[in-house]
Every structure is written in structure tokens, then in C-alpha cells.
């Protein structure tokens, strides 16, 4: 070994690190095989004296598996790498500077796609070892919590109000106001419930955060507990996320061992206990009252509101239910101040939104930006058009209950009110792109079918409406219907949508008409009888 820690031309041995992501999507692209190869090389060449870190993902998924190597200038990225590339990249010089290699991308943080983002909530995702408490602390972790210990519950709630944070789970309700309601309830058993059901197709921000920086969620939940007087938290995680489950459990166990969870956390008089509970593949259990029923061990039937969960929630006790990203944004607010968070954004949409680019998109991944960027900029500058290299035709924003938008709506700014004004929703920030081969009548039919499969069954407009919806759309697109029958069916579909929208107990039935009606309104030709040969399957 000829590199001593004092050798100033190279990295100190202790910081010779090689990063390969353990994120689900990175793994789906082969990052485990790359990690095995890196391990093999490090074992067979001990003079390299480097460690392999399995980090979260930076969110540039088309570049995964991304290999990053620490150098004095910053982390140098190579990607997408295959196991057979690694031998040519890892050598003693790679810790000093970028290695000349066709897959070398330069400094990760200078990549324009990454550099132009405003990563507040995702500040550490893809950077740290997700379950390493020291790594978390070295990157600004637990600063928010230690500030929180010095404040009263009311001051904490005021700070969150000041930030302007609105719930990122879809409904965009002001988080501070929700917390105030729970704080105002007399002292008793209260709960913090994290909604990690992330059921919306086209979304994966919660998953990436839980896999890449679970401790920021833990910290956010502890602060929420201090803010409202709750000493028990649950993370309700969907069973479709086995990797997030594993990482969360490890992070929680490390946080416990380090004194951040349990009784008298960090030597204070406060206690906070935290547990992960698994869902079981029901989309409706993302709806907060259905989620609470499920946590209590029942079928996930939606509860009528009032009472609000803030007043009578889990086991009848006052409960904060917040989305993963809402809770994970709180440590930033407490470490940098509510006003600092509020400085990002536009109108009444304050702070940043982790946007997910999905579907038929060349550069899919996670972009965290202040509210206000237009859909077009995201689709072109970040997404770089369709993966199929065909023309982009339709975009669904906000999950399966969100509207489909045609090209002439893509100048809309990402802002809750702007989206509402065009009859659309931002939801959890997922954007699903379709190229010109899409059959929008099939998409509308699927929206009804999905509602039929996932309805909790409590109210008729949703349970029966969805079944009828599929039938009526089939009649509209059937080649056997004449023009009059078709027109009658279209009218019937509108009536049905009205009934579902106004007569449903929750947004499952209430918003299924959004994708259906937008498809019909913006892409009417797709609902005309198609020549049999062209009919998509």
C-alpha cells in the first residue's frame, strides 16, 4: 500500500468510496450484479483499500446502474455500467480524478439534469448510506430535531404553518393546520401515521425517499410527535415495496440503538416509538380513513367524515395522517426555518415538489423543483421526449384519478391552483407520458375498470358506477353501435360521471370521472368506431 492518508494528491483512505445504488429501480436495471463485481475487485485487490457503499438513487434512472467514485473534486459518475465494465474503471487512479472511459459522465453534481434541481427534501438521497446514522448526521441530519427540542409544541406547529407546506399525498391540505387540530385536542394518546401506501401509478418518490434516506422520514415523524404530543408512530407501507420495507426496518432499528427512538429520546423527557406496518395490495387503503381501518386490522372501508382523523383517528384517538414527503420535508423546515422553505414556489404552492417522470419518457426519474415549472419544460428539458422516439400525445398527471392532458395544456405551471383551473390535479406529482400509439378510449375504459377493482364497496355510485362505466364505454367504442346509440351512450357516460363525482363518499369514485372525461373531451376521435384492422388490443 503506497497511498498514505497524508498523501495530498489522492483521497484519504478512509474516504475512498465507491457507490452503487440499492434502489429498487437501480436494482431492476442490474445494480446488484455491478455491486457484486465491485466487491470482487475490492477483495482481490486489497491495495485499493476502498469501501463499497450501497446508496439510494440520484433519480437519473436511464443512467443506472450508476457507479460513483469519491475524488477530491467530488463524486465522479460512470453509467450505465455493466459488471464487465468495472475492471476498466476501478484502479488506484480512479480515486484521484475521473478515469478516461467511454462511460465516464464527469462529476455527478455537475450533470445539468441534476445540477438544476432544488433538492431540499431529497438532499441526501443518492448521497448517503441510507441506514448509517453517522452518515446522516454528517450530512445535516437531526439538526431539525435538535432545534425542535428547544421549542414548544405550539412554536413547532407555527414553524410548519409558516413554511406553507401542503400535504403531498394528493389533497394538498395545509400541514400546519392539520397539526394544530391535533395539538388542540386535550392531552391523551395521540398518533402519528405516515401514509406510505403510494398507490398512484407513475409515482415512486416515497419509495425512493424511504430507500435512499429513511432517517429523514423518521426525523420528520419524531418532530411531528413533539409538535402534537404523540409518542407512537406507524408507517403504513404498501406490500409492493419489499426493498423499502427492509431498509426502513434497518433504519428504525439503528435509530433506536442510537437513542433517537424509544423512551427519553436523546436524553430528553420525550418518547417516540415507531413501527412499520404493511398494507396488503388495496389501492383504497391510501385514502386516510381506509388506511386507519386497515391499521386497526379491519377491511379498508372508507369512513364518513366528520369526525376528522385529527380528532378521532387511529383507535378513536387524535391522529396526524401525513404522506411520506410531507413528513420528510419537516426536518428541512426545522433546520432552515419555515420562511426559507416558503421562499420556494409560486402562489399558494410553497416549497418544492418531487416530480416523477414516468411512462414513455426517454429520461425517466425524479426531479425535485420549486413549484412553478411548466409541464412542457419537464417533458422536454428533463424528460427529453418519448422513449419510443415517437410523438408525445397524452400525459396523465397525478395518478390513476388524474386527468389526461393533450399538448395544448402542457404550458400549465406545476401549481395546485393552476392545475385545478384546467380541471386537473397535481396529486403526488407523478407524470405518465404516452406516445401517439395510445388509444385514449382504452385508457378511459381502464380508469373505470381500475375503480371497479379497487372500490371499497361502501357506496353505490362508485361500486356500481364503475361497472356500468366499463359497459357504457364498451358500447361507445363498439362497431355494432349506430350513431344514435353511440350518442346516447356518450350522454349516459356523462350522467354516470356526474353521479360518481357528486354522489361518492370519497375521491376514488369522485375522481374516476377525471381521466374518463378528459380522455373523451380532448381525444374524442379515439372513441369513434375504428376500422377492425386498426383496433388496438
Amino acid at each position, binding site marked *: 500500500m503506497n497511498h498514505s492518508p497524508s498523501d495530498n494528491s489522492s483521497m484519504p483512505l478512509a474516504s475512498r468510496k465507491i457507490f452503487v445504488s440499492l434502489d429498487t429501480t437501480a*436494482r431492476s436495471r442490474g445494480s446488484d450484479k455491478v455491486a457484486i463485481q465491485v466487491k470482487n475487485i475490492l477483495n482481490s485487490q486489497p491495495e485499493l483499500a476502498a469501501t463499497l457503499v450501497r446508496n439510494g438513487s440520484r433519480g437519473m434512472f436511464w443512467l443506472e446502474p450508476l457507479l460513483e467514485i469519491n475524488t477530491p473534486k467530488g463524486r465522479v459518475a460512470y453509467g450505465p455500467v455493466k459488471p464487465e465494465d468495472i475492471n476498466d474503471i476501478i484502479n488506484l487512479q480512479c480515486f484521484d480524478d475521473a478515469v478516461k472511459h467511454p462511460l465516464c459522465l464527469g462529476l455527478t453534481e455537475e450533470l445539468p439534469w441534476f445540477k438544476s434541481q432544488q433538492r431540499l427534501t431529497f438532499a441526501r438521497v443518492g448521497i448517503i448510506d441510507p441506514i448509517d446514522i453517522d452518515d446522516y448526521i454528517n450530512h445535516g441530519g437531526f439538526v431539525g430535531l435538535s432545534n425542535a427540542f428547544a421549542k414548544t409544541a405550539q412554536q413547532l406547529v407555527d414553524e410548519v404553518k409558516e413554511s406553507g407546506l401542503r400535504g403531498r399525498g394528493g389533497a394538498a391540505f395545509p400541514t400546519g393546520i392539520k397539526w394544530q387540530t391535533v395539538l388542540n385536542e386535550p392531552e391523551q394518546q395521540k398518533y402519528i401515521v405516515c401514509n406510505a401506501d403510494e398507490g398512484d401509478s407513475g409515482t415512486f418518490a416515497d419509495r425512493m425517499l424511504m430507500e435512499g434516506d429513511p432517517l429523514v422520514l423518521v426525523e420528520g415523524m419524531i418532530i411531528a410527535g413533539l409538535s402534537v404530543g404523540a409518542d407512537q408512530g406507524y408507517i403504513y407501507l404498501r406490500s409492493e415495496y419489499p426493498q423499502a420495507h427492509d431498509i426502513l426496518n434497518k433504519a428504525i432499528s439503528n435509530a433506536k440503538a442510537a437513542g433517537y427512538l424509544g423512551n427519553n429520546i436523546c436524553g430528553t423527557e420525550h418518547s417516540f416509538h415507531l413501527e412499520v406496518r404493511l398494507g396488503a395490495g388495496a389501492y383504497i387503503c391510501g385514502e386516510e380513513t381506509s388506511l386507519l381501518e386497515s391499521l386497526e*386490522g379491519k377491511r379498508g372501508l372508507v369512513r364518513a367524515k366528520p369526525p376528522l382523523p385529527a380528532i378521532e383517528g387511529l383507535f378513536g384517538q387524535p391522529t396526524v395522517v401525513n404522506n411520506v414527503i410531507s413528513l420528510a420535508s419537516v426536518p428541512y423546515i426545522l433546520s432552515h426555518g419555515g420562511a426559507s422553505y416558503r421562499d420556494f414556489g409560486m402562489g399558494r404552492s410553497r416549497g418544492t415538489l418531487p416530480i416523477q417522470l414516468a411512462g414513455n419518457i426517454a429520461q425517466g426519474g425524479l426531479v425535485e423543483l420549486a413549484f412553478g415549472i411548466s409541464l412542457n419544460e419537464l417533458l422536454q428539458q428533463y424528460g427529453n421526449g418519448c422513449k419510443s422516439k415517437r410523438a408525445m400525445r397524452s400525459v396523465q398527471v397525478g395518478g*390513476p384519478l388524474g386527468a389526461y392532458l393533450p399538448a395544448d395544456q402542457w404550458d400549465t405551471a406545476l401549481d395546485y391552483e393552476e392545475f385545478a383551473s384546467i380541471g386537473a390535479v397535481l396529486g403526488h406529482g407523478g407524470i405518465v407520458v404516452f406516445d401517439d400509439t395510445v388509444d385514449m378510449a382504452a385508457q378511459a375504459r381502464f380508469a373505470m375498470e381500475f375503480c371497479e*377493482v379497487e372500490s371499497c364497496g361502501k357506496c353505490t355510485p362508485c361500486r356500481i358506477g364503475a361497472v356500468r362505466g366499463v359497459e357504457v364505454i364498451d358500447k361507445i367504442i363498439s362497431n355494432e353501435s349506430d350513431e344514435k346509440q353511440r350518442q346516447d351512450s356518450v350522454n349516459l357516460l356523462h350522467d354516470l360521471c356526474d353521479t360518481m363525482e357528486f354522489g361518492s363518499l370519497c375521491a376514488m369514485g369522485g375522481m374516476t370521472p377525471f381521466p374518463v372525461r378528459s380522455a373523451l373531451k380532448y381525444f374524442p376521435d379515439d372513441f369513434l368506431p375504428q376500422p377492425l384492422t386498426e383496433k388496438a388490443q
Partner: protein
Amino acid sequence: MTATNEQGLQQIATIIEQNQTLPGAMLPILHAIQNDLSFIPSNALPLIAKALNVSKAEVHGVISFYHHFRTKEPGTHVIEICRGESCQAMGSRALEENIKQSLSIDYHQTSKDRQYTLEPVYCLGNCACSPAIRIGNDIHGELDQQKFEQILASLNTYSLELT
């Protein structure tokens, strides 16, 4: 619903004992049983009902509400195909038809050789690399028929372990 043998019942009794004092113990118990036995056997129901002080019908109601829980023994490999919109945008409709044909089964069915059970799933959070499927705890993306067949072949030959 299928029943389990004496050994299975013993495992179930242990799981119930370990979990029954948890607040809202039903789902953790059901998950643990399915994890260990690959399904929830019919003769588990009276045991769960008794331990949680609810009716057997209630336990049945919970199991049937959730798509994840199953009451029949599945094939060696459970293949879950994502039906979400992002995967549709990348050709999952054709893919699911091909997979059904190549395995000669529909959703919720198990192949004759008891190797594969096919289930639909609505989003695996892998939407930046659609279409996606899940086999066991592994999630595969950017799938086409060829890649699917490679994965099937590899299932039967080796499994990758990272130490």
C-alpha cells in the same frame, strides 16, 4: 380454501402467540402466516378469530378484502404483472397477453406443473423503467417477451446472492 397440516398449524399458533398483543394485530398475523406458508390456510381462521376475539366471518372478510392475501397454495414462483398506466404506456397490455399465453394461465391461476402463479398488481414503483413485473421480492423493469423468458430460465438455474 385449502387447509394445512399439523406442522403448519403449529407454525400458525406460534405466529399468533408472537403477534396477538400488537394493537391492530390482524394484518401482521395474516402477513406472517402467508410469509411462512405461502398462503393462509382455512384451518388458520378459527385460531386467528379466537385469539383476536372476533368472528371467523370477520377474519374471512378481512382476507378477502385485500388482493395480496391468498387462501390457496400458489406455484413455486408468484409472478405479478403491473397493470398500471405507466406500464401500459410502455406496452404492458401486449406483454401481459403474451405472458398469459406462454404460461397458459390467466390471472389468479397456477400453471399445471405448479411452477407459476400469475397475479395482477397496480404499480410497483418502478414506473421510470416500465413495464415492470415482480417475482418473489425481485422487481424487473423494461420488460419485453424476450427478457421475460430469460428471467424465467434464470429462475430455474441459479439465484443471485449478494453477501
